[in-house]
């Protein structure tokens, strides 16, 4: 399949914008959507289905959305807020259209609903770092906290951002996240649902980190953002040191 691409790389596109034409395919292609690429194909033409940045990678085009809620995916790391406690499970809000479920047996070894009260382990209002183990859209996502670093969050700060900005906060091959970690000295965990968990050496550093993250969130569609954030961090942290 050969494409004639009609947009520039990193160009802002809107729903219904024509991105590319399929040139050589002789067979009749029926209308279909490719949700993970945020495109749809109709009459040998590829259109965007959302507002986002067109991204071109050798003979392929996709759209990285700039808006939108978090939609769960299997194996995603998420940070959730406990909003309900049942007899055998917790209900976790992961900022998705579905509430997630964390089973008691995930947290307590030899779990027995008669012996154990789930509130003793995790209560309403507490955050957990977890992984989605099962999700297929027909039922609510199921979480696990078995894994390295997963579990209840007991220290540090939680920063909420738009889920669509997570890719930018991590950056290409983790470049942005690396920059944030090394410059501020904070230990940062980025969850796919748009929640960031930061453990910083002091409050000044945390303030600067929050400001930097908010700046990335606002200017996610800008070119050369990593460089700007580097300058911003150096300026902010430098000034703090002089004081």
């Amino acid at each position, binding site marked *: 399949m050969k494409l004639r691409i009609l947009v520039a790389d990193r160009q*802002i596109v809107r*729903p219904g*914008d024509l991105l590319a034409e399929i040139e050589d395919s002789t067979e009749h292609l029926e209308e279909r959507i490719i949700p993970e690429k945020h495109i749809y194909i109709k009459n040998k033409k590829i259109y965007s289905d959302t507002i986002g940045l067109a991204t071109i990678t050798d003979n392929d085009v996709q759209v990285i959305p700039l*808006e939108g809620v978090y939609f769960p995916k299997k194996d995603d790391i998420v940070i959730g807020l406990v909003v309900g406690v049942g007899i055998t499970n917790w209900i976790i809000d992961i900022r998705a259209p579905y509430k997630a479920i964390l089973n008691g047996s995930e947290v307590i070894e030899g779990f027995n609903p008669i012996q154990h009260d789930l509130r003793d382990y995790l209560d309403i209002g507490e955050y957990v770092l977890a992984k989605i183990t099962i999700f297929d859209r027909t039922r609510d996502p199921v979480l696990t906290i078995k894994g390295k670093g997963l579990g209840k969050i007991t220290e540090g700060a939680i920063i909420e951002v738009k889920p669509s900005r997570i890719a930018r906060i991590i950056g290409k091959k983790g470049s942005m996240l690396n920059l944030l970690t090394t410059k501020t000295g904070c230990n940062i965990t980025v969850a796919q649902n748009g929640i960031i968990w930061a453990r910083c050496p002091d409050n000044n550093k945390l303030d600067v980190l929050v400001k930097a993250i908010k700046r990335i969130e606002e200017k996610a*569609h800008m070119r050369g953002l990593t460089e700007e954030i580097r300058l911003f961090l150096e300026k902010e942290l430098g000034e703090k040191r002089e004081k």
Partner: protein
Amino acid sequence: MEKPILIREDGLRHDGRKPDELRPIKMDVGILKNADGSAYVEYGGTKVIAAVYGPREVYPRHLALPDRALIRCRYHMASFSTSDRKSPAPSRREIELSKVIREALEAVVFTELYPRTTIDVFIEVLQADGGTRTAGLTAASLALADAGIPMKDLIAGVAVGKIDGVIVLDIDEVEDEFGEADMPIGYAAGIEEIVLLQLNGVLTREEFNKALELAKRGAEQIYKLMKETLHKKYLKVLSE
């Protein structure tokens, strides 16, 4: 009120517009902080706000659809939007308009991507001067795009009408009241699909075809503006 002169001797309309001319249009997106997506649209004296929430969990639970997202739409006129106070309770007319706008939106939104969820659309008319459903549809479509909801295309709404025997674009309240016909349409200009079409009054076959063509041309102008508005939101951030 007596019938005013709708088409003047020089061929222009009562407000000085040419028959195929739109009213001045203003648009903005992302105006409400609490909504996932929002938009403000002005067609001359008609001022409309739209807010979109979702996809989110459905309450009450039993309304959820197992295979696609539910779209709920409320078109509402503020009690201060008309010259006489309008009762804020939903009227027969508002329930109908909520339904036709919802069906227009369902034609472009990829609801099958979000089963068991809801997308809530609220349209609030702040000031009514004719063409509120079309301005509302334009605003709702912009707000959906602003919320990042996957959809085929944007929808531009515009009304055409027949006043004193002349087919005119984007009729206002006076023209609607004293004209012979009023035809609002919703047009997804990129994919060339008509998603809403109503007709109140009588048009001959030729007049209908002419009116539809005129409405499409008008909708295309609005469609272009909508795309610019969405683009501008992000350019504004960069220039700051």
